[in-house]
């Protein structure tokens, strides 16, 4: 695959956005990631799959700066990323959702989503304390953006509900909304469809595709539902026990014997 091409359904895939080079991550004796390299291209949907405990979530954590790998380099937009705190990574334009939902339970849905835009709000302390000038203006502008996302994800009616009370599936959706609110270049999704039924997965798929399509957001996605992975992703990385055992288009991966043995169990249709 060369730089910049157009997919079958007419989406533009660009050059390499994020490049992981020879990443190794250990926790004490446990080697969670063992010398893995892969890249993510501008505009694509990249899936990471693998059995439980393979190190997929750990990989996302490395990308978002929460884990610091013992070895390896992370390149983003053609630059090598130095040591960074997670919030600095977020400011580069990387947003994510979490496997075990990490919403702010004490806040309403709206406030949760607004936290996604925190880095875009620049009003000074006194302006905020007086609620005057920039603070108020910014609040309303950003609120408008957030409302668009709320409409897009069809969660208008729970806007003012504290997220703690929501059922699992809606929480996942709110988490997606929060990530989207940051208008990221790269969106990391850790099992966005776990615990959903087919109907809901369909909805979620629709959102992911639309985000990718309309905003051109690059997406990296971990998912255990093979149907979803095969249908949505452009390329798939397969991990097992911290190693990379496959990388390629869904079709290539599906027919890779090692992947079938380690993960799929049976060949998926």
């Amino acid at each position, binding site marked *: 695959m060369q730089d910049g091409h157009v997919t079958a359904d007419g989406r533009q895939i660009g050059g390499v956005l994020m490049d992981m080079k020879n990443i190794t991550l250990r926790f004490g004796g446990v080697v969670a990631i063992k010398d893995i390299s892969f890249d993510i291209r501008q505009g694509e949907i990249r899936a990471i799959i693998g059995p439980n405990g393979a190190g997929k979530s750990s990989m996302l*954590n490395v990308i978002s700066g929460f884990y610091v790998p013992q070895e390896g380099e992370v390149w983003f937009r053609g630059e090598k990323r130095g040591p960074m705190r997670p919030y600095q990574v977020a400011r580069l334009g990387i947003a994510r959702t*979490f496997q*075990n939902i990490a919403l702010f339970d004490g806040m309403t849905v709206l406030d949760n989503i607004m936290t996604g835009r925190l880095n875009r709000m620049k009003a000074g302390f006194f302006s905020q304390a007086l609620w005057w000038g920039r603070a108020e203006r910014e609040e309303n502008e950003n609120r408008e953006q957030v409302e668009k996302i709320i409409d897009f994800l069809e969660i208008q009616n729970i806007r003012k509900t504290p997220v703690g009370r929501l059922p699992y599936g809606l929480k996942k959706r709110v988490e997606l909304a929060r990530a989207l609110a940051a208008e990221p270049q790269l969106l990391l999704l850790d099992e966005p469809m776990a615990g959903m039924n087919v109907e809901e997965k369909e909805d979620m798929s629709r959102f992911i595709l639309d985000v990718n399509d309309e905003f051109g957001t690059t997406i990296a996605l971990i998912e255990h539902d093979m149907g979803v992975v095969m249908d949505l992703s452009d390329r798939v990385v397969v991990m097992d026990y911290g190693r990379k055992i496959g990388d390629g288009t869904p079709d290539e991966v599906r027919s890779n014997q090692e992947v079938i043995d380690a993960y799929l169990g049976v060949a998926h249709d």
Partner: protein
Amino acid sequence: MDQLFFAAEVFLNGLMAGVMYSLVALGFVLIFKASGVFNYAQGVLALFAALTLVGIQQGQVPFAHLINAMFGTNLHHFGWTVPSILAIALTAGIMVLLAFLIEKLVLQHLVGQEPIILFMATIGLAYFLEGMGDVMWGADIKTLDVGLPQGISDTVETMTADWLGYGFFLDRLDIWATMIAALLVAALVAFAQYTKQGRAMRAVADDHQAALSVGISLRFIWVMVWSIAGFVALVAGIMWGTKSGVQFSLSLIALKALPVLMLGGFTSIPGAIVGGLIIGVGEKLFEFWIGPLVGGATENWFAYVLALVFLVFRPQGLFGERIIERV
């Protein structure tokens, strides 16, 4: 040379003072380990236990004050005294009863609440018990005597004087406290680490709901743990009560136990002892050397600052369980 001996003496006495703090800290640790509850009432529990012990020993009429105020009677004592051993046993029984009531009336209704709420509830409990202790037994200062010796240990003094040419000061009460504390810690460690109940106790601390779901009866665990903590409080109450009389200020020793706890880790029984030793030695040596330069009375804050410094390097205390940070 003398300076060195003095320092050594301060060091030794610091260790012993630390043990006295640990006795109080142990109760905290137990309850924290078992329910994730930061039990502010531990100090008051010690006071209550000591008050009850003296009350029983001296044959006081419980609630005499209230009864007198309401019915115009003039009751004070039954006129008998109870032997120490029996009184201690009776008091231990009352502490179990108290544990039962606390579970029934307070904790049961707060299953699954956030730690700070439970913490608050124990503060409420502390107020209540403090008032109740006073109403039951009166607020005057009482002398507690269960036969523990007090004062300088002549044996140690003469022995060290013979060997080293300097007679060391050790308080006999402190020596006793050390032995009792060692015993308690050994027993508690064995209990928490190697028994089924001990494991269940730690499970409850992690997740109330999940513990319920596997059939651990929160009620039983809590009554058990609070009973043990009540017993530990009784021991602490006896020690401190013998040392400085039984009266309100006894409940304030909780404040001396907190830095110990913090340093040792909220969840570690050996931590409570080691923390106590470090704090005891640290604050005594600091007061001894630096105190005179800055005007003294440094012990209160120094213990906390010392613990704080340790925490910056180990946020879970020396022996506390690692704080799990994952997403």
